[in-house]
């Protein structure tokens, strides 16, 4: 029975104090949930624990069973028995599964990789996380859920005594989440101590033994799981009372023509899908992973599979999308799913990112391509305030922002273009509860001002809570639409798995 402890950790970045005195304790065979708002300092704390920020770059003490730990780098923490699954997936697609698993601590004889023994151990590790793939197959072919399991297997490959999981479930579908939670449960039974960061409080209460809350880089509370409640955790996280995060719903009286209408759309992925969105309406699109939700949005927007048949009408006119620029110019906006890859220019500042698209449209651009700096600044500032982006200033580099705040920057970039129809693809991935409530309210307000919104989400409560109607896709086909005033998660799920009955039992169980 080992105990890992962090005492009064303080960590400064140029211009920001990320941690201002946090203490934490976790023992073998226990799952500690670490909760806090975006930018509270969770990932930073875990990076200290795993040696990414070496000894000396922070104040405070790390101890294992009372003995102090000094990490000069990541290998030191691995040697001490601490492994981490980082917030951002870090699978290397060029390498095979087993090469990924042992990267950084290969089994070797005189510098030569012992591929056979790695293959053997890979099979064990993959079994341990329930991943049924060949160790020599290419890592590039895995789905996001499988990649996450592979990351966990990779962290286990050094036989850690403590495992840190930084938002392991944020990118996963409910079914995959269950799988990951089961795996964590198993790891815990084997005596490994786990620290898990998550913004999904249901799963925290499902799996954790204790829960620690930090806010603005300071420890707020530490409770046994049965001594606290969701409401209390939320209150500790955001520092105020927060009731229903979903804005109140009212029946929409649709008078106008639909602003966006899709008729019998068929591409390589989706088959014969029709739907319409009106001004002021929020349409949800639900479905399992791989049901073609994102692809549908991308096809309309002009960045996805080619439209083979069917038509899209925008503001009553036939809309043939030639390129994303054209779509944006017409008034469409697409908040993409993968913020790091598709959403941000990571080495540029918040302002540069958030004004990028609008500038391409010619806003604030004077004759001869010169930019009006003051006007841009003002607009960027407005959205910065509106979205409560937590960063030292508009000039902060987006790479250094916490995951949730990066997501907000992507959103601000699209709101800046003043779209008529807004597509949101998994918009709240990695966003904390408090910010989520504000975000929902914001979307609702925008809709009330006449924006049409289409939101794709894997989280059923979110789709149901936010939208007026929900279109359910399964294997690229539209299975039906439900009114959210009357719908239940079960009724949506039933449609989502219509073609696969057994699947549904598993998921709803």
């Amino acid at each position, binding site marked *: 029975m080992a105990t890992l402890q962090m005492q009064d950790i303080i960590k400064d970045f140029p211009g920001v104090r990320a941690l201002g005195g946090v203490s934490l304790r976790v023992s073998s065979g226990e799952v500690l949930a670490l909760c806090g708002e975006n930018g509270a300092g969770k990932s930073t704390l875990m990076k200290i624990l795993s040696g*990414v920020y070496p000894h000396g770059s922070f104040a405070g003490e790390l101890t294992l069973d009372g003995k102090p730990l000094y990490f000069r*780098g*990541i*290998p030191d923490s*691995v040697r001490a028995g601490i492994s981490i699954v*980082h917030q951002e997936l*870090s*699978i*290397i*697609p*060029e*390498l*095979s599964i087993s*090469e990924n698993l042992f*990267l*950084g*601590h*290969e089994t*070797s004889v005189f*510098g*030569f*990789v*012992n*591929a*056979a*023994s790695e*293959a*053997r151990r*890979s*099979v064990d590790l993959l079994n341990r996380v329930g991943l049924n793939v*060949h*160790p*020599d197959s290419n890592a590039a072919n895995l789905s996001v859920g499988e990649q996450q399991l592979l990351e966990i297997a*990779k962290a286990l490959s050094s036989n850690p005594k403590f495992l840190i999981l930084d938002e392991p479930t944020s990118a996963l579908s409910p079914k995959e989440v269950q799988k990951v939670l089961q795996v964590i449960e198993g790891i815990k039974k084997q005596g490994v101590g786990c620290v898990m960061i998550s913004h999904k409080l249901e799963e925290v209460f499902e799996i954790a033994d204790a829960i620690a809350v930090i806010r603005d880089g300071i420890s707020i509370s530490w409770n046994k799981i049965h001594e606290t409640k969701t409401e209390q955790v939320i209150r500790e996280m955001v520092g105020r009372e927060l009731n229903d995060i979903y804005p109140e719903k009212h029946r929409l009286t649709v008078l106008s023509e639909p602003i966006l209408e899709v008729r019998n759309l068929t591409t390589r992925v989706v088959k014969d899908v029709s739907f319409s969105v009106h001004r002021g309406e929020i349409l949800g699109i639900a479905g399992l992973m791989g049901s073609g939700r*994102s*692809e549908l949005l*991308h096809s309309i927007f002009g*960045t*996805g*599979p080619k439209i083979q048949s069917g038509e899209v009408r925008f503001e009553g006119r036939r809309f043939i999308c030639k390129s994303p620029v054209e779509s944006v110019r017409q008034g469409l906006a697409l908040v*993409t*799913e*993968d913020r790091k890859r*598709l959403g941000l220019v990571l080495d540029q500042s918040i302002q540069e990112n958030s004004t990028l698209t609008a500038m391409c449209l010619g806003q604030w651009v004077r004759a001869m391509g010169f930019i009006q700096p003051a006007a841009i600044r003002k607009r960027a500032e407005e959205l910065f305030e509106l979205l409560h982006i937590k960063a030292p200033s508009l000039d902060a580099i987006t790479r250094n922002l916490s995951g949730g705040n990066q997501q907000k920057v992507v959103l601000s970039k699209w709101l800046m273009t003043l779209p008529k129809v807004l597509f949101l693809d998994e918009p709240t991935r990695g966003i904390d509860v408090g910010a989520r409530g504000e975000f929902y309210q914001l979307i609702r307000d925008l809709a009330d001002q006449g924006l049409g919104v289409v939101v794709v989400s894997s989280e059923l409560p979110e789709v149901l809570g936010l939208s007026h109607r929900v279109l359910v896709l399964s294997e690229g086909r539209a299975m039906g639409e439900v009114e959210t005033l009357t719908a239940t998660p079960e009724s949506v799920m039933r449609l989502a798995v219509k073609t696969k009955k057994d699947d549904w039992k598993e998921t709803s169980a």
Partner: protein
Amino acid sequence: MKDKLRALSMVIALVLIWIVFDRVTGGTFLQPRNISNLVRQMAVTGILASGMVLVLVLRHVDLSVGSLVAFLGTILAVVNAQWGLSPLSALMVTLLAGGLLGSIQGFLVSFPKIPAFIVTLGGMLIFRGAAMWTTSNTTVPLPTSWLSDLGTAYLSATQGLTAFSGVAIFLLLGFFLRARAYKSVNVPRPSNESFTTTITALVVCGIALLLFNNYNGIPVPVFIMLSIMAILTLVARRTVWGRQVYAMGGNPEAAYLSGVPVHSRSLLTFTLMGVLSAVAAVVLTARVGSASPDAGQLLELDAIASCVIGGTSLRGGRGTIFGALLGALVMESLNNGMSLANMEPFWQFVVKGGVLVVAVWMDLASQKQKEVFA
């Protein structure tokens, strides 16, 4: 699979180029004498390209190798001819100097993180200047000794056969040992390690050996190049070091977070590139018989072009040394064929440039266009 397809299409392209040149030159191109010459000339590019693959895989580039080859060549000649050091000491001094200069560049790239493009662009100018300085801008002849044989001699038929058997035994033994290792841990062998590949490789080598032995034997520079390529392939595919280099190229941040010592890896890669430049300098100087400060002009571009034609990705993470060998063969076939056909020099430049761009274009076009979110 994709790599194999690429290699196959390159072999076909190569055969086409050869047939065309053979027609144009009225049959001289494919004569054993010319082929032997061609591969001998190719050795320098090939040696440099095999190191360049690793540099490119790391998402870096080394523009200094052409000048470095010239500088190291002058060191070799000056030390051997003017200072009177023995051939062996001169060789050692040259190799050491190569490693040292490579590691200085590697240090600047890895630690202060100056972009490799800049560091090696600086190196390109500095080494060229240094070569002029060491020779006072004249040509320094290399005395005849076993050292100059490294550029001009041939392996005898028995030596060639011995080398071939050595390789064959090594490959087959390696294959069976690995097969046994996989069997003992009860895991299926990776599909890319098929017996047919090993046998095909051996058969091709065997045929090449027979052809060479029909003429004078394997030219020594070619033997040196092939040995280096074999060793580096082994290093790239089977050692921890090689695997980590490819991982760093695929995703540097992830590699760093996985505990790969990224700085020392790239430092060592540049050092290796320096040593290989020294080997190339020795071969080139020995072949020409003298060192001149303007030797090896544009060699860096030939080396990079060979890698890229051979399928190395400039975005890092992908590239094989075997591909670079084929690429170097293409480049050198063009060089040799065009001068044999008495083409005007300006056309030679235009054709080489065009082939490079078109080759990469076709390679990209053959890959399926990815959708943005795929």
